[in-house]
């Protein structure tokens, strides 16, 4: 059986002085099309030392995944390395033959992709897939391979490894699948692990657990890691060093702490200013989005790629020649691709943007009372089979006021989408009431609602690439919404209104004639917002409107939404799993889990103790890109239960880390039995702050804040 751990060999290497596992030197990669050469990566250098985790950050299209594919020498037919070298343990990968590369891939270098299901063979049992790795690369016997598989599955902390090995990929949840992919990568004891957005497809609490696992395994096996992500918070939690990429170039690299606290490139700075960190506030300290758009690979500007969007741009200097990397003295291997890095006042506070007037919420617009939505599923085509009830929403009660932003937070399967459907009238409620302007609408499907009701409740959708009909012009889609909402009295009038709506969402009027595929993700999302506000909506449900956008665009779209809301006094129901952005923009927060509201209160109340244990875990799971922040680490065990078979009692009891703190009722039974028996009542802790939990007062009172900002 192969020995676990290359730690010893890694330390041996260290003894001989710093010998990098992976050394990328001035790498340039281009893709060749019929029309032109498209440079994807230019002059990219980076080194990964043994046992070190290096992060690669950048927005979509910046070339970070191309670097990873270049390391794997898997660029496809039209991709080609046009300059520089990639050395793995001192050997040039580009000079290796196919046979040598096959030996390196999978055994020396392993890669983990975003979509776990895409890396697993759906027709093979997990055990066989894992065993293949050592059997192929080391010629291990089936028994040895199986023993190793069991051990690795145990290492990635999956329950009941024997059963897991016997199951097929589709029988596992997304988080479990990703753990299997990680296990598969570890089967061969790779010296280098490349992780390409490994947790983007996962829920926050599952992501936190997987990230923790990757970190622990990295330590245990001494594996070097190249961690690709767009999430700065994740990089801070996992990596030692990072490299920021922009439009095919590395713009800054260095130790995580140096780059986070003493960034020396304007793009890095702009990136940090566009993400909601603790302390950002929509009225007092709004986010600052990066102006302009990402340049297309064949339309890059001369000189500095970031030049046209940079605040510190100096004509005649920044666009005069290609910019090399400059070493920032004083820090450990900290470089920046900025000519003016030592001229810019980096610590100067952000030029004060005008603080916007805070709008006081008005009267109650929307009231939910004891809303329940059950689905019955199962049953064959002819009515046979057993029927089951899915309780998608249980006793949902809340109010939303005019001009208020109410965030609805929860992971997949928490019932937030079902709730949106019932509110929009795509489904009718099983019981309970929805009062919109004192009119009960829960039993009215959308066909039976009048135009006013329909136009006053509208929705902004999550996926920008899906929100617009690809075969209709942008203008036509907005005009159609105006027609349906009976706004405007002639075609000309409606066209004028459509153009004004484009103005409102800050898009050029020429976009009216464009097809959706000609727009970027952020622009599409703006059109989606214009369409939702076409009929003067009073309540807008925004279903993760920015989660699929790049960080620099997120800020702009969020601010746009806030601006329109402030002007029109719309009530915004902001569905999200991203607590940073929720904290930034919402007035009140409602946390949902498995169809239940587990906590509701003003943003300050929810983000400060006392918490519901689920909120506490959620807060701890969110990666925050700020070195000053200290977090309590709470990693939830297990997976979110299926809504088909919810646990008895409290919905959260299967994963609750504080269940043991609930005292037993009669002193006989073990603590926490109460949680398994009864759904907790909604308890009011403070004015407007409610929690659905059995925890006694003193435990709640004794909670400490999860997110603490160290004194500056």
């Amino acid at each position, binding site marked *: 059986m192969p020995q676990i751990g290359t730690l010893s060999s890694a330390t041996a290497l260290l003894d001989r002085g710093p010998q990098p596992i992976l050394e990328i030197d001035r790498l340039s990669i281009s893709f060749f099309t019929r029309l032109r050469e498209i440079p994807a990566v230019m002059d990219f250098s980076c080194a990964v030392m043994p046992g070190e985790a290096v992060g690669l950050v950048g927005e979509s299209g910046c070339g970070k995944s191309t670097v990873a594919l270049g390391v794997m020498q898997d660029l496809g037919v039209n991709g*080609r390395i046009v300059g520089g070298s990639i050395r793995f343990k001192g050997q040039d990968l580009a000079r290796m033959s196919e046979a040598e590369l096959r030996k390196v891939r999978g055994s020396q270098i392993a890669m983990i992709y975003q979509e776990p299901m895409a890396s697993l063979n759906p027709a093979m049992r997990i055990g066989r897939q894992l065993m293949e790795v050592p059997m192929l690369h080391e010629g291990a016997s089936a028994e040895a391979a199986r023993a190793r598989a069991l051990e690795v599955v145990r290492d990635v902390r999956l329950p009941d490894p024997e059963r897991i090995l016997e199951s097929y990929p589709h029988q596992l949840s997304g988080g479990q699948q990703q753990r299997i992919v990680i296990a598969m990568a570890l089967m061969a004891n790779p010296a280098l692990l490349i992780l390409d957005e490994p947790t983007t497809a996962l829920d926050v609490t599952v992501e936190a657990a997987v990230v923790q696992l990757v970190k622990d395994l990295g330590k245990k096996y001494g594996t070097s890691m190249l961690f690709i992500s767009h999430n700065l918070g994740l990089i801070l939690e996992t990596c030692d060093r990072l490299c920021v990429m922009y439009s095919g170039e590395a713009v800054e690299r260095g130790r995580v702490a140096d780059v986070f606290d003493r960034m020396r490139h304007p793009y890095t700075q702009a990136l940090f200013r566009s993400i909601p960190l603790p302390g950002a506030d929509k009225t007092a300290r709004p986010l600052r989005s990066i102006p302009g758009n990402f340049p297309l690979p064949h339309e890059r500007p001369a000189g500095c790629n970031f030049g046209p969007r940079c605040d510190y741009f100096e004509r005649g200097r920044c666009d005069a020649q290609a910019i090399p990397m400059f070493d920032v003295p004083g820090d450990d291997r900290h470089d920046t691709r900025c000519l003016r890095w030592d001229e810019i006042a980096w610590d100067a506070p952000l030029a004060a943007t005008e603080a916007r007037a805070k709008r006081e919420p008005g009267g109650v617009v929307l009231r939910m009372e004891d809303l329940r939505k059950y689905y019955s599923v199962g049953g064959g085509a002819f009515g046979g089979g057993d029927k089951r009830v899915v309780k998608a929403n249980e006793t949902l009660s809340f109010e939303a006021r005019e001009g208020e932003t109410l965030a609805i937070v929860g992971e997949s399967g928490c019932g937030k989408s079902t709730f949106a459907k019932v509110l929009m009238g795509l489904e009718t409620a099983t019981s309970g009431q929805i009062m919109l302007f004192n009119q009960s609408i829960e039993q009215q499907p959308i*066909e039976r609602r009048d135009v006013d009701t329909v136009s006053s409740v509208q929705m902004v*959708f999550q996926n920008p690439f899906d929100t617009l*009909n690809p075969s209709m012009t942008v203008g036509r889609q907005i005009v159609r919404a105006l027609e349906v909402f009976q706004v405007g009295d002639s075609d000309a009038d409606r066209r004028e209104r459509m153009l004004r709506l484009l103005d409102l969402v800050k898009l050029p009027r020429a976009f009216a004639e464009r097809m959706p595929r000609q727009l970027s993700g952020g622009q599409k999302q703006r059109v989606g917002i214009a369409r939702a506000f076409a009929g003067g909506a009073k309540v807008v449900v925004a279903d993760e409107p920015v989660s699929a956008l790049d960080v620099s665009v997120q800020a702009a779209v969020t601010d746009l939404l806030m601006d329109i809301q402030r002007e029109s006094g719309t009530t915004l129901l902001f569905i999200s799993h991203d607590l940073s952005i929720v904290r930034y923009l919402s007035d009140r927060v409602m946390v949902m889990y498995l169809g239940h509201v587990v906590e509701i209160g003003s943003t300050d109340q929810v983000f400060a103790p006392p918490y519901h244990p689920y909120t506490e875990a959620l807060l701890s799971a969110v990666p925050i890109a700020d070195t000053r922040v200290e977090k309590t680490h709470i990693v939830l065990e297990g997976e979110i239960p299926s809504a088909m078979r919810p646990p008895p009692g409290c919905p959260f009891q299967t994963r609750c880390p504080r269940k043991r703190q609930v005292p037993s009722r009669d002193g006989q039974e073990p603590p926490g039995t109460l949680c398994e028996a009864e759904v907790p009542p909604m308890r009011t802790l403070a004015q407007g702050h409610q929690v659905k939990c059995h925890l006694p007062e003193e435990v709640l009172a004794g909670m400490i804040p999860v997110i603490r900002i160290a004194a500056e």
Partner: protein
Amino acid sequence: MDPLTWTGALGDWLDPVLAVAAALFGVAALASVLAGLVLPAPALAVNPDGTLAVRRNLRSWVDAGLRGAFAFLILVVLLYLAGGLLLPYGDAGIVGAMVRRFLPVWIALALTFALSIRFKRRLGLYGKLFDSTVGMVGFGLVMFWVFTALFVGLFDLIATHDPLAAVSGLKNKPPGVPVPGADLPAPGAHYLLGGDNLARDVFSRMVHGSWIVVQIAPLATVFSFMVGITLGLPAGYHGGRLDAVLSFLSNLILAFPVILLFYLLVTPEIAETGIPSYMAVGLFLFPILFVGVLLWSRYRTDPRRAATLMVPTLLVLTWLYLSLVSQAETPIRFMGPLDLFDVPGGILVVFVSVVFVNSPTVFRIVRGLTMDIKTRDYVAAAQTRGESTWYVMLWEILPNARGPLIVDFCLRIGYTTILLGTLGFFGLGLPPDSPDWGSTINSGRQLLSVFPHPALVPAIALLSLVLGLNLLADGLREESLKD
């Protein structure tokens, strides 16, 4: 008059050249295949200026040789065509005479291609077709037959003789036989592709057959699509019991042997009961439904405009529909003098049967696409602004399913053409003397071993049209996937 040889005087020196060119091409192709197996691929190198360069090795020379031989072959073929156009009648033989007869088609094709390639960037998917060689070849083949059909059917050009007239003495005569009594070396002096077993001109029958095929196949396919779409959209969109019932029915039709179904439909006893006519009543109702719902769902917010658009459209469509279903000599005949046209009974039956067997397949495709597209956010957006289900289906879902549907449309015209041939071959539907390709193949079948040309000519025509449609579909699919 002397009989025409295949290539005439031109062939005396061009035929050996053609043989050499063909031999060269064959050798080069073989060499290229062998080189691909044995020799390594030429290495690609990156130039300092960022362009790619191929380092030539033996294999790249072999490939270049293949390309050269192919170009030579094409050049020789083009010489035959040019000879036919430029030399006087008869000097370029049968091939030359036929090339000359197709002159209007060549002009139309050249114009189409020139205009399309000139403006291809502004023509959407159609324009992109001209980026793909396969697509262009397919489009060329299809348009060749379409133009032939139009010139024959509308202007009576191309054909040299009446497709139904027999000239005594020319029964089963080989290609190039002179027509007795014709003295001038002019078009019509020969049966270019010989005579069939009833002494009719095979060439003229073939080009006249194209008019029948080009009339029926696309129209029948359009009707199949209307039926399939009108049923497939709600089945996929609503699902549930409606879907179960409709899918079951379509499976039922698909499971029934097609030929047996045709035999049943055209048997005189069954035709007398009026079953095909009643089926026509049902099937041809779908286009009216389709257009009506399409317009209403789009303009329901503006009833006045909806009325001004819908009333005339629906009136015209209904009148056409009533004229179509009301046929003399069938149980359904009520229009009297208002009846605009009568479709010959056989053609109506063929039409009905083709629509009937094709629409279940279209139904399944549309249903599957709908099930996929209905989960998109823009569909949800339409729902949440209170659009009617038919608007969502016809204006949000259907346009986004068009890619696969267009491809399938092309393929299906091909199938329908073959189906028409099959029907004609079995002597079903169309009258026995009809020049359509299927019937012609059937009548030429009896003496196939002695006189192959009467059956072979329509068979090759059918093959080239269907091949063209398939290549066109391939090209469209390939180009619609790129962006």
